[in-house]
């Protein structure tokens, strides 16, 4: 992200505990801010719902969970292509070619997510008065994610953080007030939550379009980017489907109640990856980015073969160091979480502590897998990223189905799938980095190839 790496380096260079902590907290805010705020809102609402008299929580939670799951999976391919398109335009100095395609996509997605939301509500069989706010929420969340990817492509984390930071409290307040409403009844929860998300959407839209130049190119189109990045889109779809498929399998095998408990435990377990994500972010934006830049810059500044080999070696070493660092941070956090899991399990979530432990271990493997996939993206190894994502999707579905539900080993399938995916992603990454120099050169297209 433009400028943030430099700011992080300055913080780290001060070499004090406070500045280092500041750098990693910045990493937490940027990598996990929107997701943390959304999770915080949902958990806070759940905890406070019982004490505040809000009614219809389980059904509202189900609707919200389904909306997020479906929208994230369906929008993932569109979002990643838009993000790359926006990044490419920024890199090419063509920011005026972003607004028009973004508006077109927003219009298309508004229609698309109305359909997606409607179908999802029909599938889970909620009554019409619930299906309507559920569908509206799908539209809002779908457009949010689209704008998130555009803002990400524009390297504007501030736009994202500000929008979610202001929208989250509105959601909480909305639920508390509208959830008590006798007129709306249980629908108040959904409308109240949705009001906050609309605020977030409005701020995202305002911030994103404000960051774009006024002299926009109306003829610009994002369609060629879909042809160019189709494999990336497929990888994103597979990856996000892989994040949800185990929940879907549990829902199919064990019913809504078990799925709800399982999803809540998974969300809790996933919170354990925040420190590792922050570490990864800081590492990638600082040391890794410097080495990455040094290698690719050397290609164009007259480096000899020996120099290039040295820089490629440095980059490989840094990739290994980054992944080991992520694993070390995550390992430490996971051990702590496993130790306190028995005391958490009964209070925050319902269900077996063994499930939570399995999900914690799974999350640990998954963060390593995600880090490796992210690095594959960084080196533009789309096919390998796709293979890793498909591994997660297939393995998670198969292993969860094999273990069955309900089962005391629930969550173990997810953990096995994540371990397998992590292994596959690391092997692919190592293999391709071993031939980094070859691929850097031999992969380059020749303008007049027939």
């Amino acid at each position, binding site marked *: 992200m433009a400028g943030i790496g430099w700011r992080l380096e300055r913080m780290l260079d001060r070499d004090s505990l406070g500045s280092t902590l500041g750098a990693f907290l910045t990493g937490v805010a940027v990598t996990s801010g929107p997701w943390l705020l959304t999770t915080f809102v949902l958990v806070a609402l759940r905890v406070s719902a019982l004490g505040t008299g809000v009614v219809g929580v389980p059904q509202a939670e189900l609707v919200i969970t389904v909306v997020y799951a479906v929208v994230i999976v369906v929008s993932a391919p569109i979002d990643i292509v838009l993000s790359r398109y926006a990044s490419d335009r920024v890199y090419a100095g063509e920011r005026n070619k972003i607004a028009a395609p973004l508006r077109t996509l927003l219009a298309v997605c508004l229609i698309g997510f109305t359909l997606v939301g409607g179908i999802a509500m029909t599938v889970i069989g909620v009554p019409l008065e619930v299906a309507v706010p559920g569908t509206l929420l799908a539209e809002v969340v779908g457009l949010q994610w689209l704008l998130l990817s555009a803002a990400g492509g524009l390297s504007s984390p501030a736009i994202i953080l500000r929008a979610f930071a202001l929208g989250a409290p509105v959601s909480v307040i909305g639920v508390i007030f509208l959830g008590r409403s006798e007129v709306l009844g249980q629908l108040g929860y959904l409308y109240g939550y949705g009001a906050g998300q609309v605020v977030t959407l409005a701020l995202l839209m305002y911030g994103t379009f404000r960051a774009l130049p006024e002299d926009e190119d109306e003829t610009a189109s994002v369609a060629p980017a879909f042809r160019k990045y189709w494999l990336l889109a497929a990888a994103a779809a597979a990856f996000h489907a892989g994040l949800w498929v185990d929940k879907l399998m549990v829902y199919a095998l064990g019913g809504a109640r078990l799925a709800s408990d399982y999803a809540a435990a998974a969300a809790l377990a996933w919170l354990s990856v925040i420190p590792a994500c922050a570490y990864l972010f800081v590492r990638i934006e600082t040391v890794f980015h410097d080495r990455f830049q040094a290698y690719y810059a050397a290609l164009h500044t007259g*480096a000899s*073969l020996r120099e290039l080999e040295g820089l490629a070696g440095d980059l490989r070493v840094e990739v290994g160091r980054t992944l080991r660092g992520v694993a070390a941070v995550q390992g430490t956090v996971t051990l702590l979480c496993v130790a306190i899991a028995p005391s958490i399990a009964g209070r925050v979530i319902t269900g077996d502590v063994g499930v939570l432990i399995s999900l914690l271990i799974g999350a640990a493997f998954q963060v390593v897998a995600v880090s490796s996939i992210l690095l594959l993206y960084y080196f533009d190894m789309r096919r390998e990223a796709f293979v890793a994502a498909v591994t997660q999707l297939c393995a998670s579905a198969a292993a969860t189905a094999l273990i069955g539900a309900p089962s005391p080993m629930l969550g173990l399938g997810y953990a096995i799938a994540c371990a397998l995916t992590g292994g596959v992603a690391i092997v692919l990454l190592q293999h391709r980095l071993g031939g980094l120099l070859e691929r850097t*050169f*031999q992969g*380059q297209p020749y*303008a*007049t190839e027939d």
Partner: protein
Amino acid sequence: MSSEPVDVTLILEGTYPYVAGGVSTWVHQILGAYPDRKFALMHIGAHPGAYEKPIFDVPANVAELSEVHCRGNDATGGRAEMVDAPPPRESPSRVLSAIRRLHLNDKIDDALLSDLASGDLSVHELLHGDETFRLIRDELYDRLCGGAPFMDFFWHFRAMHVPLLRILAAPVPAAKCYHAVSTGYAGLIGAIASHRTGRPLCVTEHGLYAREREMELARASWIKDLPTREACAARPSPLRGFWSQYFRVLSRIAYHQATSLVTLSEANRRKQLADGADPRKITVVPNGVKPLPLAIPGTAPEPIAKLPSAPLRVGFVGRVVPIKDVITLVRAVAIAKEKVPLEVSMIGPQDEDASYARRCEHLVETLGLMDVIKFVGPKPREEIYANLDVVVLTSLSEGQPLVMLEAYAAGVPVIATDVGACRELIEGGDAADRKLGPSGICTRVASPHETADALCKMATDPVRRMAMGKAGLARVTSRYQLQDVVARYDSLYAQLAA
């Protein structure tokens, strides 16, 4: 492609029937001279669309005109996606092995030609295969261009060998014999076709291809020299040598496979020998011209000696391209016009290297010579020489310029640089020839002062100039007649096709 082999497949690079010039004129003469022989023409161009249409009327005895291009169509240009490596080969590529030997081993032999002729390497494999990269990285870079940026070496390697593979893959019209009208890519195609079919190859070198490329490469701006510690200085890039060596090897491949090597002059024969040609294969067949109508012996009017005060009518006849070094001529005119009045006509096409032509015109403007030098474009040769007192050629390289022979046929003396057969044509090739007297003045290459001096001499001594014109006419009449050339090649083709 016709299945019946033609008598001769002429292999041409960047010349007939698309480009004007001495070689094209020579090819046209040869084709027209043997209406009963069936020819096929294979033309090597830079890329599709480089030439719009033939500028010569190709005679009816040409059964086929085929094209091969060093680069493909640019329809896929601009593709920015990384390209996957091809699947690993079951056995090492023979062509890649030959490429390795082209660069690292001095020996040219039949095994090398067999490997090249195997054609077992696709352009995709060359560009994206790991085997190629290992060759570049492990064997070639350090030994050939260790000081150059690796990225530059890599791209030059690609740019060098993609045309090679395209040429190796090009279908060559079947013939009883192959005749390459230069070495380089044409010579390579001829050598491979000859090796594959067992039919003989004749190579005619007008200029010396490898040496001409070397001269171009020494000045090429598309090769970046290496920076030094001094801000305004640069070290010559080893890539220049990389390319020069490559073209020398291509010439030697043609020399190796050729049954017969034809050169235009004794001077060029000596250079071919120095470049590795087998002396037993070389034959000297000079160019020849048809007598011009006004210069038929016995009917030609005597050149009129004008008064020294009248402007000297100077003509440059040829393509306005760097190898003709028109810049030196412009500078020479700028020097000479301070002493003698001149009228200079630049007669010839300017479209082959438009940027160079613009540079020349710009220099004329900068030096304030617009009233003296006129770029008049191409003209029929019958209209050229009657209005000239002297022809000037300041070329960096020549074979045996037809322009000089045409000028002589019109009784016009020539000032020419000491390249190719120019000195022979001016001073005489042997004792009998020298007795005819000089038919012009020979100058050093890239020397505007010498050329200016020669112009001044021509302008101030009309009697001597007239004598030179007479000597030229006598020389061309006695030694450079087209009918002699036709007879020599008739015999050569008969031998080769037997």
